[in-house]
């Protein structure tokens, strides 16, 4: 569906269902340069199992037009406005990489609207190397190559996509090829510049789950340690995966999310 957020169109995948105010809602927030369909299998599951799904495309990504947002804080405001536009009072937020920082920021800012956060492939600080930023600033193909290669476990190109017949690197590169100049740089810079992660983590009141990949080259598992420790009561599930956990280990990711999202939320 297309929402109107800040006067601009915003695409949200709803797994072909109308939003039902009686159902709980799961919001999926993708990483830099990617789009809602990186969560394809998982978002579809929740849409067909009693939940509203809003798998959003951030501005300039996927099917949402417009210039990219410059900071994680702006993205968090945008997500909360998207919930307003969809008339969703509160939701569980599942964020990957850049989207995980946005989910964290939303939970810190609007505890009454965020029921749970699941943070996949995350790190704090989420520092991006100068070479990567510079390549993205110049819209250099090398930036898309770095995003693609570091965005997957080292063994991914040598075989075995769980999704039959698909080539993960090709899918990543095809998505990145659709980006307008400057979008990847804006998204990476937003990750790199986000500086209030630990303060935000301390404000999280809802249940939090970290799903981390043991073979993650982009945000190595240990780089999430400080953040995990800072979020009260957070749980961690480690999976044998690179950074694209939901594509590389789709079933295990889904199982972890089902387990987390189906559990009752403690009374506030």
């Amino acid at each position, binding site marked *: 569906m297309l929402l109107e957020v800040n006067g601009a169109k915003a695409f949200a*995948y709803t797994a*072909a269902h109308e939003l039902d105010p009686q159902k709980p809602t799961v919001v999926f927030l993708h990483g830099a340069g990617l*789009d809602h*369909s990186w969560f*394809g*299998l*998982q978002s*579809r*599951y929740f849409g*067909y199992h009693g939940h509203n799904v809003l798998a959003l495309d951030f501005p300039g990504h*996927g*099917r949402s037009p417009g210039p990219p947002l410059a900071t994680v804080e702006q993205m968090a405001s945008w997500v909360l406005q998207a919930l307003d536009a969809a008339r969703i009072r509160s939701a569980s937020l599942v964020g990957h990489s850049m989207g995980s920082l946005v989910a964290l920021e939303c939970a810190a800012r609007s505890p009454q609207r965020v029921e749970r956060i699941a943070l996949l492939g995350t790190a704090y600080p989420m520092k991006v190397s100068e*070479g990567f930023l*510079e*390549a993205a600033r*110049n819209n*250099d*193909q*090398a*930036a898309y*190559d*770095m995003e693609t*290669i*570091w965005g997957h476990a080292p*063994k991914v*190109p*040598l*075989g*075995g*996509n*769980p*999704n*039959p*017949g*698909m*080539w993960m*690197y*090709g*899918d990543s*590169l*095809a*998505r990145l*090829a*659709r980006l307008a100049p400057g979008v990847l740089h804006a998204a990476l810079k937003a990750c790199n510049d986000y500086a209030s992660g630990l303060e935000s983590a301390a404000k999280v009141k809802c249940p939090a789950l970290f799903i981390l990949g043991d073979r993650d080259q982009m945000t190595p598992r240990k780089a999430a340690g400080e953040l995990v420790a800072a979020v009260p009561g957070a749980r961690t599930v480690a999976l044998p995966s690179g950074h694209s956990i939901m594509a590389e280990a*789709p*079933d295990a990711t*889904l199982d972890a999310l089902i387990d987390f999202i189906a559990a009752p939320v403690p009374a506030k």
Partner: protein
Amino acid sequence: MAAGPKYPGFDTLALHAGQSPDPATGSRAVPIYQTTSYVFRDTAHAASLFNMERAGHVYSRISNPTVAVLEERIAALEGGVGAIATASGQAALHLAIATLMDAGCHIVASSSLYGGSHNLLGYTLKRFGLDTTFVRPGDLDAWKRSIGPSTRLLFGETLGNPGLDVLDIPAVAAIAHDAGVPLLVDATFTTPYLMKPFELGADLLYHSATKFLGGHGTTIGGVLVDSGRFEWGKSGKFAQLSEPYAGFHGMDFEDESGTRAFLLRARREGLRDFGACMAPMTAFQILQGVETLHLRMPRHVENTRKVVQFLAAHAMVETVLYPELPGHPDHELCKRLLPRGAGAVFSFNLKGGRPAGRAFIEALRVFSHLANVGDAKSLVIHPATTTHYRMSDEDLKKAGITAGTVRLSIGLEDPQDLVEDLDRALAAARRAGA
């Protein structure tokens, strides 16, 4: 340009892409999963697989672990988002067209096509309401002029059959994209070793895997690959991919994924309903060929160059149609688009008419007279009486074929033996034509 991390090389991908050692047994070779179906863990798992909420296999017409290795490997070699292996190259062409078009749609295609493809477009698909306009592949104005409101696809062969017209993919792709339609190419003759059509602008491609990919003349198969670069919704011409489809539970394929929409529908509708899937044993056999593609193609090209050189200088040979020769109309295009070589299938025109042609073919000892190309063994055929025999004289002429045209597919034998075999047969042709 900043130095990025490195992708595995072509040769490594040809051997490894798509397969990790089998998790159940540790098997290093790709196991042949000779099974129709896969036991569900429980009813919820079954429902999730059917509804595309979990990754995996349900029924081997839709997907199979052995076939999936071949699909992923070819997608990796071509730089696509994914691939679908099919029962034959013709099934791959049909799957592409059937996924994109309804009755009333129109195709603009190169006139230099494999006879089977010409038949499909010129005759068979007409019965189902799909029309094709054929244009000379090098006539860019004709490509443009022939596009109408109902056109949904431009289609040609990377190297046209049998005159080896080199398709100007960058130019034809630009024409297609200006019109909001994709360019599909048949890349059988070039394989990803000699040309990467997606890097030149093509949106979709397919192979008759029967030929150089399998490479040993043992197995019929095809593979359809999507670049994932064509934006179906933005084009506004492909409701098949960008509007809810009642034939698949109201799925809007582009809503699911912009880059996977085409393959989603091709697999979930095309394989489900038309059913022209690849068998696991076939996939295994083609994979054996793919694993040495990077070794075989240079030798195919090297042998071809020696044979071409010999024929071009022979008194019984009127013309040799090989784009690496300066006299070929697409010589410059070949240098630009095919720096690694113009393949190993080409035609030449023999002097002396039909009697000379007959004598030539019957005198050959190493070359086998049969209807195939891309074997490890050298092959020969006379198109006017075999692959293109259904075409009218006028269509034959348009495709650059005469009564004296002979097509060779150069194999991996000792090139001197090939030259001697041809020399002997040309002498026989001279005697017959005298």
